[in-house]
């Protein structure tokens, strides 16, 4: 019997298998991944520094243990070159693999904004655990000796002695410039600043997380993160990255210049669609699938950050979990359409937590402020005065479950 083959070992790929195994222990499953196959939580990549976690500490379950627990064949460090839909086979770097049904869960690539300069290639992205290991290593390299009188000499990684002001003041700060003040950029800014690094955030937009939040809510993040030392620069972008005597010299679109030891790009994700496109599957921004997660080929499904489900790409945790459960049922023989409830997005900025149920860019209606004590509580009311979105920041973030239950209901008068 030919197996169900899943491509990708991220949250989407492993979740659909985990859900399938609750329904069927016997159906053969093969997971193909170009990575190590170790299971880790991607949302933790932008929250692990302040907790002192290195890449190894983020691995929850090793690949071999995942394979044993789930009863699957696991092919790691394997690239899929092509899908032969007529013969239902995959051409991979580990040979040909036949599939009965195929699940594409390949995720997304970080978007790279072109910059000029002789160090443009030095701009980093952190999109998987290997990127995180590299990033953390580079941060460690920049550490100077910090003498903390209350404890002992604390160093980490390679110790670089600086003869200049850095060493004499005991500073261990790495100057990190983050390109992009969206969700991931803000999470990294909070995490890096909490870990003691000097952070600047450069964003061409008007306020933090502007793609998901209205101005009054986005601005709530400014002061709490500035208090951690974050230097915000909106309305501009990085034009050049050049080598400096140490680190890099950045030139911004507005002409300003600043020094950085590391430059981190966090400007968004682009669904990985190349393999599907090459196989002739329908693609838009992501791999086009219906409510059953089925592509234009009835034997091929997609979910997660690479998928566009009924016209929507939703690269967040909750949509993946709902899609994985529905797809597992379909794969086990019970055709099931995914039904998405209200799924708030949680922004992990401990300095000022945020939960947001975003509204479509062209949604008709308006944001209403409901409360604003040390944060804001805002509701988006549609033309019929029903709540169709919300933003909760600071102390209000804890109300997200109650708010989710009110979505679709008529708002109480102000």
């Amino acid at each position, binding site marked *: 019997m030919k197996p169900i083959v899943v491509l990708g070992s991220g949250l989407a790929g492993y979740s659909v298998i985990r859900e399938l195994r609750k329904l069927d222990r016997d159906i053969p499953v093969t997971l193909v991944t170009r990575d190590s196959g170790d299971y880790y939580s991607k*949302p933790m990549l932008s929250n692990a520094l302040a907790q002192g976690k290195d890449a190894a500490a*983020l691995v*929850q379950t090793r690949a071999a243990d995942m394979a044993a627990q789930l009863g699957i064949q696991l092919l790691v460090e394997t690239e899929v070159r092509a899908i032969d839909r007529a013969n239902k086979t995959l051409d991979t770097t580990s040979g040909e693999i036949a599939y009965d049904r195929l699940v594409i869960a390949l995720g997304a690539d970080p978007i790279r904004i072109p910059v000029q300069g002789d160090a443009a290639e030095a701009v980093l992205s952190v999109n998987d655990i290997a990127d995180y290991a590299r990033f953390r290593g580079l941060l460690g390299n920049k550490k100077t000796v910090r003498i903390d009188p209350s404890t002992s000499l604390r160093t980490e990684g390679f110790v670089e002695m600086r003869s200049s002001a850095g060493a004499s003041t005991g500073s261990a700060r790495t100057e990190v410039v983050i390109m992009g003040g969206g969700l991931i950029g803000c999470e990294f800014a909070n995490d890096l600043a909490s870990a003691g690094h000097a952070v600047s955030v450069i964003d061409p937009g008007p306020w933090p997380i502007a793609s998901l939040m209205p101005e009054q809510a986005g601005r709530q993040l400014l002061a709490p993160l500035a208090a951690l030392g974050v230097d915000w620069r909106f309305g501009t972008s990085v034009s050049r990255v050049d080598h400096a005597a140490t680190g890099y010299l950045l030139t911004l679109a507005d002409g300003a210049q600043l020094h950085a030891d590391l430059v981190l790009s966090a400007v968004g994700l682009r669904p990985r669609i190349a393999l599907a496109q090459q196989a002739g599957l329908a693609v838009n921004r992501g791999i086009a699938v219906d409510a059953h997660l089925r592509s234009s080929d009835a034997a091929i499904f997609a979910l997660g950050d690479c998928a566009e489900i009924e016209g929507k790409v939703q690269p967040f*945790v909750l949509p993946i979990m709902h899609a994985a*459960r529905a797809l597992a049922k379909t794969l086990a023989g019970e055709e099931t359409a995914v039904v998405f409830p209200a799924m708030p997005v*949680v922004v992990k900025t401990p300095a000022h937590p945020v939960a947001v149920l975003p509204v479509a860019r062209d949604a008709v209606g308006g944001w209403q402020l409901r409360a604003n004590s040390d944060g804001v509580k805002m509701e988006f009311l549609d033309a019929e005065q029903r709540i169709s979105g919300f933003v909760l920041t600071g102390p209000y973030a*804890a109300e997200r*479950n109650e708010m989710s239950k009110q979505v679709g209901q008529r708002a109480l008068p102000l």
Partner: protein
Amino acid sequence: MKVWQCVVCGFIYDETKGMPEEGIKAGTKWADIPEGWACPDCGVAKADFEMIEV
């Protein structure tokens, strides 16, 4: 008393500590946490994810 970890985001729930800030008393067993509870870090509902013993 056991310690559990959210497989989605890595959040740790320690039964001995509970989550007093969320109204869950110290010593509350995972099994006794209400079904409507959601992971405080990633927002995944209790029924939507698995906690693994660590």
